[in-house]
C-alpha cells in the first residue's frame, strides 16, 4: 500500500481495525548510506544546524515547520498550521513523495519509492530522536498496518486456554481474585458483555486510553478467548 494512502487510512479505520501488526523498523546502517542523498541539504547528529533544509535531530514527534529561525516554504507553513506532526507514518509518506503530502514544499527530492529504503532511512533518522525506552511517550518505531475484520464477532467461540495466556496482559492491573480497588473486576462476566465492552474500547466508544490500547491490538478471536477464560475462571 502506498505511504500516503496508508497514512490516511490509518486515521479513518479505527472503528474496523482488528490486530495492528507492525513492520519492523528498518536497517539503520543501510539507512545511513541512503541518507547521503539527503545530506547535501539536511544535517543530522551532534552540532547539526539548519542549512538548505532544517536539521533533522529530534525529528520524530516534532510538529512540522518548527526549527527555529529556518525559513520554511509557504506550503510547509500551511501544513504546519494544519497540524502536521512528523510521525513515522507522515515522514514515511513525505519521503516517498514530498509534494503529494506537502504541496509546494521547497524540498525538491523526488522521493524513495521502495518501502525498505524508506524504512531504512527512517531507522537512521530514528537514532537521532528520542528513544521510547527513555521517553516512553515518544514516537513508535514500528509501522502499524491494519488487517481486515471477520464479521460475526459475537458468534466466535473463544478458546479459554489461549484466553488464560492472554489474561497475563490483564492481570498486571485486574486482580484474578476478583478484588477491585481503583480498577474494576473483570471476572465472571457473561462472555457476551465482555466481548461488547472490549469492542467498545476498540472502536473508541468507551473512553479509557489504557483499555483502548489494550483492546486495540486484540483480534476478535483473542477477545473471545479472554471472554471465555474470565467467564468461568475458578
Amino acid at each position, binding site marked *: 500500500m502506498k505511504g500516503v494512502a496508508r497514512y490516511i487510512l490509518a486515521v479513518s479505520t479505527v472503528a474496523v481495525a482488528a490486530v495492528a501488526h507492525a513492520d519492523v523498523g528498518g536497517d539503520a546502517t543501510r539507512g545511513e548510506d541512503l541518507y547521503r542523498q539527503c545530506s547535501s541539504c539536511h544535517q543530522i547528529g551532534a552540532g547539526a544546524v539548519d542549512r538548505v533544509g532544517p536539521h533533522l535531530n529530534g525529528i520524530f514527534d516534532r510538529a512540522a515547520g518548527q526549527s527555529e529561525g529556518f525559513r520554511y516554504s509557504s506550503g510547509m507553513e500551511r501544513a504546519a498550521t494544519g497540524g502536521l506532526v512528523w510521525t513515522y507514518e507522515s515522514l514515511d509518506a513525505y519521503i516517498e513523495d514530498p509534494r503529494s503530502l506537502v504541496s509546494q514544499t521547497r524540498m525538491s527530492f523526488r522521493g524513495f519509492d521502495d518501502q525498505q529504503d524508506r524504512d531504512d532511512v527512517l531507522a537512521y533518522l530514528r537514532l537521532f530522536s528520542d528513544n521510547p525506552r*527513555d521517553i516512553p511517550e515518544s514516537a513508535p518505531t514500528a509501522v502499524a498496518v491494519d488487517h481486515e475484520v471477520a464479521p460475526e464477532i459475537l458468534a466466535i467461540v473463544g478458546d479459554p486456554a489461549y484466553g488464560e495466556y492472554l489474561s497475563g496482559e490483564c492481570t498486571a*492491573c485486574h486482580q484474578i481474585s476478583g478484588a477491585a480497588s481503583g480498577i474494576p473486576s473483570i471476572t465472571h462476566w457473561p462472555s457476551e458483555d465482555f466481548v461488547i465492552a472490549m469492542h467498545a474500547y476498540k472502536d473508541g466508544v468507551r473512553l479509557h*486510553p489504557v483499555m483502548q490500547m489494550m483492546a486495540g491490538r486484540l483480534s476478535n478471536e483473542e477477545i473471545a478467548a479472554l471472554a471465555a477464560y474470565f467467564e468461568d475462571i475458578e
Partner: protein
Amino acid sequence: MKLNRRAFIGTAAAAAGTFAAPLLVRADGHAKPRVVIVGGGAGGATAARYIAKDSNGEIDVTLIEPTRTYYTCFFSNLYLGGFRTMDSLGHSYGTLAAEYGINVVHDWATGVDRDAKTVATAGGYTIPYDRLILSPGIDFVDGAVAGWDVTSQNAMPHAYKAGSQTELLRAQVEAMPQGGTYAMVAPPNPFRCPPGPYERVSMVAHMLKETNPTAKILIADPKEKFSKQGLFEAGWNDHYAGMIERVGPDFGGDNIEVDPNAMTLSIDGDVTNVDVCNVIPAMKAGKIADLAGITEGNWAPVNAADLSSKMDENIHVLGDACAQGDMPKSGFSANSQAKVCANAVRGALTGSTVFPARFANTCWSLIDTNNGVKVGASYEATDEKIAKVDGFISEVGESAEVRQATFEESVGWYDGITADMFG
C-alpha cells in the same frame, strides 16, 4: 526462538496434541526439568509464579532472593510524599512457597557456571538448572558521579533500591532546616523508571510545601529531556511554583561533583551548599548478569521473543537488567516480560504451547494529592528488538476528576501487580 531439538520436539508434540514430557527426562536422571530464578522482584517473582502455576508441578522452580521482604520501588516515592506507609510496600514470599510450591532460597547468587549449568550462592550451595532466569534489577556504575560511592550513600542516599534507603531519604527531608535546599542528581539514560526521579521531586515538593514551604529543590540533570516532561513541568508550575529549579546539560547539569562530607554539590564548577543530596548514579544490570558473562557494556542483550540471552540460550534475562529494545525499565515492563518468558520456558521444557510474545507497559506518576498522570504503550517482538507499536499519555490541563481517577487507578494497579507477583 531458536529451533533447537528440544523446542522442535515440544512444538510438534503440542501441535499433534500428544504428550511430550517423556522425551524430556533430564540427562542426569532428575525426573523434572529445573528452572532457577535469581531475583524475586517484579520480573523474577512473576516468572516464578507463572511457571509454577501453569506447569502444574511439571517443573521444579527455585527462586533465589536474599531479602525476606521485598519493598517495591514503585510507590516508594508516595511514601516520601506521605501517601503510603513503608509497611504497605513490603511483600513476603510465603505464598509463593506455600501455595505454588516454589523453593524460595534466601541467599545471594554469586556466580553462574554456564557449562555445568549451576548457580553458586554466598551460602555455599550449588544449584543446578535446565533454564536460568536472571532478574537482578540494577546496580550503579562505579565513579558515575564524582565524589560519590556506596560508602557515601548514608550521607547522600540514592533511594533507588527501596527500603532503608527510602526511609533514610525521608528522614533527611523531614530534618531539613526551614528554607533549606534538597538537591537531586538525576541519572543519565537508560535507567530504572524514566519518570521516577521527577515523580520523586513532586512528592518531596508536596511534603516540603506542607512543612517547609520556603525550601528549594534543585535538580542537576544530564539529560536534555525526560519522560512526561510537559506534564511534570505544568504540574510543578501549578502546585509548587517557584520551588523547583532544574539545571539541564546546557547549563552544566552533566558536569557534577559532590562532596558528602561538606554536603556540597558542584554544577559545572559552581558550588552550592545543600541540606539533602539525593544522588541517583548511572545504572547497569545487577552484578550477577556480569558474573554470568552475558552482558555487553552495562546491560544484558536478549532476544525479544522469549527474553533469552543473546549469549546463552539457556539463560533468560528480565526487567531492568536486560537490553531488549523500546520498553522502559519499569516494574510493569518486567512483569510483562516475565509472562512471555515463562510461557516460552515452559514450552521449551515441557512441550506446552508457546504463544506469540506481546508486551505492554503503563506507568502512573503522582504530582500532588489526587493528581495522577500516566503514560503507556504496547509492544511486540521483532527479530531486532521489543518494538513499540502504540501508546498514549495523559494530557496537560486535564480536569481534577480525571486526575483523581488516574490516581485511584494507580492504587488499583499497585494491588493488581503485587498480587500478580506474589500470589
